[in-house]
């Protein structure tokens, strides 16, 4: 297998709520330019482009067709991958396989979302619409009171599902909603050190978060992600071409990629739900062990110096490091400050998804941020102080049912 290195990361600009000045391809284009700028590569050196987003959020089918000229894809092979929340990392994995397969020497991967053009809340409902509405055929009680029918429907929404997951997790970890407040506060404070983050709240405290309204117990507004506009671009090259194209001595080597999917773990209304949304065996038992094996990592807690997890909701920033075998008990760890940028297992120094969520980009941003940490190039004070030899990036998606993992490091795996 060929080794693949990440030699550059580009964002279009700071992630923000609204970009009324540009259309979608115009928003993405600077990210492409910024990624290329940090290399010795010309645009013509790019062999393949892999792109993805959540297509119903902007109402554009196969949007890569439109962007051809803006992302430098005209006349090039282009592959489009879209897998819900994991899209960004699935796209990255696509780029990785384009190079690892030997088909291409250079791949450019693009993840993006422009949330101000559509309605993500309605878009998310689109996951469960046919299933939820098929329940009407079975005569649920529609009086809106405590009848079972509406209860059946109510659990399908995204925040509803996340709340179930949060409580199931807290019960297992013996944590409290205050732990989620703490985690969210750390994320927002970290985001203030990341010039590209959307919701920045310097010195945010758990008390600040606890003041935000409760959405659905135990989750508060302060625990949930914003809807952001932005794009992330990364350049991947084959080992033989690293010297030629990289403009830095410290590139990030892709040591492992892994993914797994289960059934919908919430809102599986028609076929029965047999999986606990807070169990995530797909991560703990399948994808994470596979990734560690591929990367040659025996003791992740010691060998990995930081992680970027996909935390659409703040409790997930506690849950995922446990499922990834990086932390034994995150509630305890956050109490002891071990998840901070200068802690023993820094989680989301970038501020995470809970601070910035351009959905199609978010899981790629995790890999980008992990790579920047390995390259020592995280800007604005969110660089982890100790040397990052190995970093882990994670994404989740669907009805809490997809997981993607990427491990990057400062040395290639010897194969």
């Amino acid at each position, binding site marked *: 297998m060929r080794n693949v290195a990440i030699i550059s990361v580009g964002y279009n600009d700071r992630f923000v709520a609204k970009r009324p000045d540009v259309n979608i391809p115009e928003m993405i284009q600077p990210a492409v330019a910024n990624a290329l700028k940090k290399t010795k590569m010309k645009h013509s050196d790019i062999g393949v482009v892999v792109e993805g987003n959540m297509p119903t959020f902007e109402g554009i089918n196969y949007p890569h*067709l439109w962007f051809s000229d803006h992302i430098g894809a005209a006349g090039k*092979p282009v592959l489009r991958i879209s897998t819900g929340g994991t899209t960004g990392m699935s796209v990255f994995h696509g780029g990785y396989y384009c190079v690892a397969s030997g088909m291409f020497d250079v791949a450019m991967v693009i993840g993006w979302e422009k949330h101000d053009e559509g309605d993500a809340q309605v878009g998310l409902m689109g996951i469960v619409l046919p299933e939820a509405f098929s329940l009407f055929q079975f005569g649920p009680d529609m009086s809106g009171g405590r009848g079972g029918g509406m209860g059946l429907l109510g659990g399908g929404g995204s925040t509803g599902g996340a709340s179930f997951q949060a409580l199931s997790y807290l019960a297992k970890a013996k944590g409290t909603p205050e732990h989620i407040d703490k985690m969210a506060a750390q994320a927002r404070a970290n985001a203030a050190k990341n010039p590209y983050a959307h919701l920045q709240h310097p010195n945010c405290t758990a008390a600040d978060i606890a003041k935000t309204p409760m959405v659905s117990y135990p989750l508060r507004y302060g625990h949930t992600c914003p809807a952001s506009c932005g794009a992330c671009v990364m350049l991947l090259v084959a080992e033989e071409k690293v010297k030629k194209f990289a403009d830095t001595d410290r590139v990030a080597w892709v040591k492992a990629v892994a993914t797994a999917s289960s059934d919908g773990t919430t809102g599986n209304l028609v076929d029965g739900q047999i999986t606990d949304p807070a169990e995530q065996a797909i991560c703990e038992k399948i994808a994470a062990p596979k990734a560690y094996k591929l990367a040659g990592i025996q003791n992740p807690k010691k060998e990995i110096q930081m992680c970027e997890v996909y935390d659409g909701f703040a409790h997930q920033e506690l849950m995922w490091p446990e499922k990834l075998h990086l932390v034994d008990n995150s509630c305890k760890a956050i109490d002891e400050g071990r998840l901070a940028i200068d802690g023993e297992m820094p989680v989301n120094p970038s501020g995470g998804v809970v601070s910035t969520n351009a959905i199609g980009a978010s899981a790629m941003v995790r890999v980008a941020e992990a790579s920047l940490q390995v390259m020592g190039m995280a800007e604005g004070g969110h660089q982890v102080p100790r040397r990052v030899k190995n970093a882990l990036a994670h994404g989740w998606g669907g009805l809490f049912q997809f997981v993607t993992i990427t491990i990057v490091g400062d040395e290639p795996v010897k194969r």
Partner: protein
Amino acid sequence: MDRKVAIVGYKQTKYSEQNENPRERMTYELVKSLFQDLKITRDDVDTFIISCSDFQDGRTISECYMIPWIGAYMKDVSKVDSDSANAVLYAMMRILSGNYNTALVVSWAMGGSEFRSPRVMEYELDPIYERPGRLINEITAAALQAQAYMAKSKLTEEQLASIAVKNLRNGARNSLALRKKANATEKDVLASRALSLPLRELHAYTPADGACVMLLASEEKAKELTKNPVWIKGVGFCQDTYYLGERDLVKMDSLQKAAKAAYKMAGITDPARKIGVAELSTTYVSQEPIFAEAMGLIPKNSGPAAASKGWMEIEGKIPVNPSGGPQAANPLTVGGLIRIAEASSQLRGEAGEHQVKKAPKLALAHGQIGMAAQHNVVFVLGN
């Protein structure tokens, strides 16, 4: 690339206006029947690559509820959001990397019963110029392409109709086809409803419900699983500029480049002689000579000769779409995968009534998306 990838098995549904089953069971039955044929279980599949479309399924992340139905519960899965030929391509690259030995490609769409394809395809247009402009859609884009080709090559309307007749006739020999017209004539085609001239209803694809699944494997694994693997000899893919007014609709740069890459990988220099059969995603029949020329299967501007001399008939010198192609049935995103399956069955001599006579050694399969085929994928297969 030190590995080789083979197609070891595939299954298609019968195409229909409405499948007897919803998409879940339709695909589930297909996956199970492929597993049965190959004597494998879902545990033998290392990775699943899905090709489906949120706009065709009318759902956000439309694979969510399908994961367990295709046997991918607790398995390695990804989804290509493009024509399914791209999914085969991705599955192949995953195997080439050495990370996987087998990959199952799964694609479905309810193009006949659940959605209206012309509306779905409007979402492929940019929302700020072409969509509000209301002039360009899949039909008018293909019509402009057809018109440009006819002006250049002097292909007549009768000759264009004869290509439609050929595909409808081929479709009648394909037991899975939806639109079958064994006795269609040029006159019928020319009398069919005018869409956007020169294109008429009988030139167009037939929206259908359907699914297709295909198992790919590494060389070693393929030899374990089947006696007659079909080898992926070459692949190429490419995308043009979006803007119709800046594309040479006849020359088709992207298809030309895709084919060139595929031939290079397969080590072919004279495709016209080497390729024995081609299955092309021609959503409108006018694309048949255009694509064939762009891929070097017939000489430039030879569409008229090809049509009048029957070069692309099942018995012709370069049979194109013996299955009837998308005119016989087109479950949109499944299209490219069907073409690959059909090309494979020709190589294996398993195409039955629509088998080409001379057992071909090399076959070509093609998938595309976009207005006037902006994005193209080309596969060269051999046995």
